């Protein structure tokens, strides 16, 4: 048992490492190819050419692209992600710091979204004509259709005018709701569809004919079957939540990874962009791992070849 667990973890970790390396290196290359670099802001501010030239020399910006990529890659191997030219701090320190903030928010939002979205989705999928379903589905669609910026601002407006939620800088409840509710809606929709499909499966129809009580049908059998497609996208959902959501972080001023990437793009801080890509890849890998484990827990009969 433990042996296969270890080998499974080892394979997963290898895959994750490969993903991290490939993604971050590609992000570095693309960011270098994009217009602008770390001296662009100086150029706009009117700094003279010699100072800019000195800075370019120090950062090695005029070296050919393969040389720069190689230098960055060598740093990656040593776990040294370089220094952010905008923040003047090591990238790894920045990413870890912001990553912890994001993790706190994302974990809260994820639990909220899963605990709300999945069970409700099972219900609306199994009993679509129920009065509760008829009320919940439009609400869910409203959350799906609403642009995230509008939703976040709207929630803030609501918090300010009613005073029900705190908009103080450290409060996690408001951002978690702003982040979690739309995800809950997505999970609800997917789960609902999958449950509706599962209810039509021949073995379930047969079971119903055999007289098995409907609630057990729904919550034991259909739910299990239907979790698979949801789990399929769950990894991406987890990954993107933990990489930070820009709209929510901007509006609620939550210092997370989403804002970090945004600042990096505006400052043309290529090293930081690549560092954020590393963080994003790690988050996705963690999300995939979590999903795989959940899949096994939920459906032990699943014989995944991976």
């Amino acid at each position, binding site marked *: 048992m433990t042996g296969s667990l270890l080998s499974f973890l080892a394979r997963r970790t290898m895959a994750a490492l490969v993903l991290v390396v490939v993604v971050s290196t590609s992000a570095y290359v693309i960011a270098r190819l994009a217009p602008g670099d770390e001296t662009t802001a100086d150029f706009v501010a*009117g700094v003279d050419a010699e100072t800019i030239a000195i800075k370019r020399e120090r950062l090695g910006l005029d070296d050919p692209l393969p040389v720069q990529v190689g230098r960055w890659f060598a740093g990656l191997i040593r776990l040294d992600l370089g220094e952010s030219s905008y923040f003047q701090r090591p990238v790894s320190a920045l990413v870890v710091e912001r990553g912890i903030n994001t993790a706190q928010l994302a974990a809260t939002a994820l*639990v909220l979204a899963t605990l709300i979205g999945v069970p409700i989705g099972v219900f609306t999928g199994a009993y679509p004509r129920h009065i509760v379903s008829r009320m919940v589905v439009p609400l869910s669609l409203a959350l799906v259709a609403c642009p995230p910026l509008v939703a976040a601002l709207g929630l803030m407006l609501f918090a300010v005018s009613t005073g029900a939620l705190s908009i103080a800088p450290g409060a*996690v409840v408001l951002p978690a709701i702003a982040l979690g509710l739309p995800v809950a809606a997505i999970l609800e929709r997917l789960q609902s569809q999958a449950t509706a499909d599962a209810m039509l499966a021949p073995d379930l129809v047969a079971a119903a004919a055999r007289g098995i009580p409907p609630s057990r049908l729904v919550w034991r059998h259909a739910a299990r079957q239907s979790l698979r497609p949801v789990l399929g996208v769950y990894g991406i959902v987890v990954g993107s939540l933990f990489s930070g959501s820009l709209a929510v972080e901007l509006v609620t001023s939550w210092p997370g990874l989403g804002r970090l990437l945004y600042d990096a793009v505006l400052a043309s801080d290529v090293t930081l962009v690549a560092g954020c890509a590393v963080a994003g890849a790690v988050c996705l890998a963690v999300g995939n791992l979590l999903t795989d484990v959940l899949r096994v827990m939920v459906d032990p009969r699943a014989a995944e070849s991976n």
Partner: protein
Amino acid sequence: MPSSRLVRLALVGLLLAVVGWIGWSAWSGGTTQDSGDAADARTSGGRLKATYQTEPTNFLRLVAPTAANQMVSLLTQSTLVRLNAAGELEPRLASTWTSSEDGLTWTMTLRPGAKFSDGSPVTTADVAFSVRAALADKAGSAAAGDLRVGGQPVTVQALDDARFTLTFPSPHGAGIAILESLPILPRHKLEAALDAGNLAAVWVPSVAPSDVVGAGPFMLKDYVPGQRLVFDRNPHFYGRDDAGVALPYLDGIDMTIVPEYNTELLRLQAGETDVITDRLLADDLAVMRQSEAAGRVQLTDAGPTLDVWTLWFNLKPGVTSAEGRPWLVAPEFRRAISHAINRQTIVDTVYLGQAIPAYGPVTPGHGAWYVPTLPITEFDQGRARTLLTSIGLTDRDGDGVLDDESGKPVRFSIITRSGQPDREKTITVVQEQLRQVGIAVDLVPLAAPEIPSRYAAGEFDAIYFGARQTSREPGAGFWRSSGPFHFWNPGQLTPATPWEERIDMLFQQQAATMNPAERHRIFAEAQQILAEQLPALWLVAPRVIVPVSRRVRGATPIVLFPPVLWNAERLSLVDGGR
């Protein structure tokens, strides 16, 4: 894939841990708890709540002159002199000064008893060090430019601990006002780094706050990256008000990093902040007026801004984009466009009346530099069409768009920066107005990082852009043909046209003249030439309207940045903030 009970147990344990962590953090308000709650109730000052949109990257503004660093420097450091709201020099660390007959040598006396925040006295050695630091090669040339006259640096000579002389290499009209941007830095903290050549690494954001020493009204107490800056009053600050009460009135400033302007407004409305980063957009005045009527905020109109966004054309000689379209660089074309634009419509529609039309880069906000009698291009569609016809542009095929002599339609593109709603709206109005005289305009909004490369490569027809003015004085970067902000043809080694040459000469003259009235007259002539030649177009100067909460007393918002915190030592709170 092993389906072991071990995995299940591990997962359950992990889930419990996660839920526990979330519960704890939600209950305790998160790890980002605001530490400013325990305000000291004994003193009468109170703490100001502020929000700021960007983060400081270095507490030494000299090495990285960003807006956030400038703001921190303003609060924690002090200069020798300062220009007040009326534009007059007032003493700061320097208490008195006299000038020699020829105005080249100034003898200045430091305020007796002035100290840094760690108790050490401010001496002329610190002044000399600060000048040396500003002029050092690697310290960044923005500050150095202020201290150079005609390419030569000013020199500082200490006479004793409290008196020193400042010598200009040649006559300089601005005089000691150039010291306004020079913070006097603590030599004992920074000299070693300057000598070692790594000044930029001393006051990085991770430095211990107590190491950030300065003679300003506040000192840095805490910095949590991404979240907040905490300032406490500097007990050694030299400032006193007219009654002799020690400044600053405030006990401290709690500044939260809030990157989104709309969130700042919400916090202001909710009473969670007293001061926001910058000015209001005209669109938000209606909402803020409601808050004003409800007694929560006070709005102040500080007058027209100094930053007039410029619409300039690519006039670099030999540029490829004008090939096949010679009319694009013809002066009549630009003049016609200026006549075709109804600036009052822009004022009314985009800024809801809270702006004034601008025909040049100098506005009433620049004070005495403004010349109201310059020739302007009135809104006159007929005149615009006549000018266009005079360079051969008429509608030859009746499609509503003018064509040149070879039959090609008159069409050009304007690049603008996305993310600035009022500027984007302004240029959309311009597009519509030009359509009415038959000129087709393609608007190209680009994100900020994309514009400099297109600009540097010269691949554009026209750009609508603006830079933040940091002083009321005319800026050499724009007016001189060799300057980097000489937008239409930047960084020329020699002026491309006779009138640019004349402006160069005039600018030199006014910089070297000592008599203010004479300087204004000379500069007025330079503005006249610009208004006649129209290398670029200026459209509107929005009014600067600044909100503060009702709690704040003593705020005098100005058009420069930062509008409220520039004299933070004079701010106080109603009832001491209780």
